[in-house]
């Protein structure tokens, strides 16, 4: 596991910001830490990185217990916490030299390639105070890459980026995971961002992890597979579908027939074949994509419910 926490808790006086979080982030994946603003995402990241002390519980980064082996654990970790900050009076390259000096002599050699990787090589010698927010974000990523990280921890990394920058960032993250085998832990309140970048996610609210798992599982909720089928003869199609064992339920909708499958979505082709054999013209066959947003709103809104119902959600 790249990250593993057990009953991790952070209290600020009477207020509990992180409440007994158990988290398991597998190596070589992009993992989203999804929650509304104020859910405790940044506090969680700050604890993982040793920026603030945990009140209770335990955690491991890349197999090293933190804080006991914090130095070893962070050797191969890169992180952006909140917005990346720099010494504005220094150039981009000099800012990286500051961090490289603390990481070790061999790291300094990687400054040029890190700057090139994020497309800042040509402007590396300009003072950071002249950089746009997007350039600062890229310089932040370059700073993360200095340590050739096995694990990248990114806190709201696309804040302030324009759509082009966000797209570029997604591609960079996916390449890091798929081509370089790095693990990315990405906190965000943007559902779309997590859904597009991450393989798995945890949904957090008010300091608690409500649910975690693969994106498809989370979005699917109860793993219900549905199809929207467009046909030229709805009555014939309904009667045909009624006789197919693979179909659990079917009803009309504005988009066409909405079919709930008994099996996985891969059975759609068999349903299609049955309809065609019955003489129904199929004009559309589309799996219903349950969005993470639906699931997110579902589970986080349940938190406003009384305690008993919250426990049902957690279970």
């Amino acid at each position, binding site marked *: 596991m790249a990250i593993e926490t057990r009953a991790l808790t952070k209290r600020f006086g009477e207020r509990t910001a992180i409440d007994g979080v158990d988290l398991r982030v597998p190596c070589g994946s992009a993992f989203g830490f999804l929650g509304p603003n104020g859910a405790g995402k940044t506090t969680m990241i700050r604890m993982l990185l*040793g*920026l603030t002390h945990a009140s209770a519980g335990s955690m491991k980064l890349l197999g090293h217990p933190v804080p006991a082996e914090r130095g070893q654990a962070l050797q191969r970790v890169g992180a952006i*916490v909140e917005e990346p*900050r720099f*010494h504005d009076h*220094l150039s981009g390259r000099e800012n990286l030299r500051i961090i490289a*000096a*603390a*990481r070790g002599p061999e790291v300094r050699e990687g400054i040029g390639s890190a700057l090139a990787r994020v497309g800042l090589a040509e402007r590396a010698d300009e003072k950071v105070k002249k950089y746009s927010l997007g350039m600062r974000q890229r310089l932040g990523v370059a700073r993360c890459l200095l340590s050739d990280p096995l694990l990248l921890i990114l806190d709201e990394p696309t804040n302030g980026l324009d759509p082009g920058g966000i797209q570029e960032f997604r591609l960079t993250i996916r390449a890091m995971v798929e081509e370089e085998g790095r693990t990315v832990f990405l906190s965000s309140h943007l559902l779309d961002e997590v859904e597009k970048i991450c393989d798995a996610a945890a949904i957090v609210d008010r300091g608690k992890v409500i649910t975690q798992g693969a994106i498809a599982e989370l979005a699917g909720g109860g793993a219900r597979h549905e199809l929207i089928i467009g046909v030229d003869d709805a009555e014939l199609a309904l009667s045909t579908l009624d006789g197919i064992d693979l179909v659990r339920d079917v009803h009309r909708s504005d988009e066409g027939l909405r079919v709930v499958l008994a099996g996985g979505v891969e059975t759609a082709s068999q349903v299609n074949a049955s309809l065609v054999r019955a003489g129904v013209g199929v004009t559309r066959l589309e799996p219903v994509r349950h969005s993470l947003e639906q699931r997110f709103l579902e589970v986080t809104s349940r938190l406003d419910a009384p305690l008993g119902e919250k426990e049902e959600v957690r279970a």
Partner: protein
Amino acid sequence: MNATIAGQMTGADFLKLRKKRGTLIWALVLALMPLLIFFIVRAAQHSSNPLKYEPAGGLHGYTDALRLLAMFFGPLAAILIGTEGGAGDAASGVFRDLVVTGRSRVALFTARVPAALGLCWLVVGVGYALAVIGTYAFASGSPTPDGALLANGLGFSLLSTGVLCTVAVGFASLTTSRPAALTALIGWHLVASPILANISSLGSSRRIVLSQAIAHFSPVNLGDGGRRGATVAMSQGTALIVLVAWLAAFFALGAWRTRRMDA
């Protein structure tokens, strides 16, 4: 942490300070401008009435220049640089990124001290060079300091400013606020210290005033009386203990705060 990494970290901290143009310019102004004004005014006075006014240079001129540099304006430059070195990372928000490297927080703090001292002593060295040049250029035939005195004077200037600079690094790291640390230390050095040293009812407890202990290491008499410019009588051993206590206390406080603070 090995010596290479410690050297690199100190070099990185020195780079941060050296490139902070405002701080560097003001430190140079504080170290040089009063000396320039002093020599120009004294030279003008001497040339207008040589019988009434002593030469700007020579042994007397050197003593006055050393007092300006080592006891007043050099320490102010040292405080300016020390507070920047102590609070710069926290003020810029980069401290947390340094913590994320996994390097120990005490090591991060420790690197600030030699970096600040390096720049401070560079600035004070330039100031001292100006004092020596003025001493000889405006001697007008009066006695001049010998090599040993010049060396001791340089050592005293470096000691005086080095102690203030280290205290400033520790105090700024403790407060994590440069404006607060700057105001408090300048207030202490220019206002509170002279007042406390002159309240005779405080007796020997005035020995803990830092500027009084520093003055005991001066190679020349920086004031009236036989205490090398200090108001409070104490042995050199006591003065040394006071200096070490100030250094140790503020180093420890700065390191403690850096280790404990939320980044």
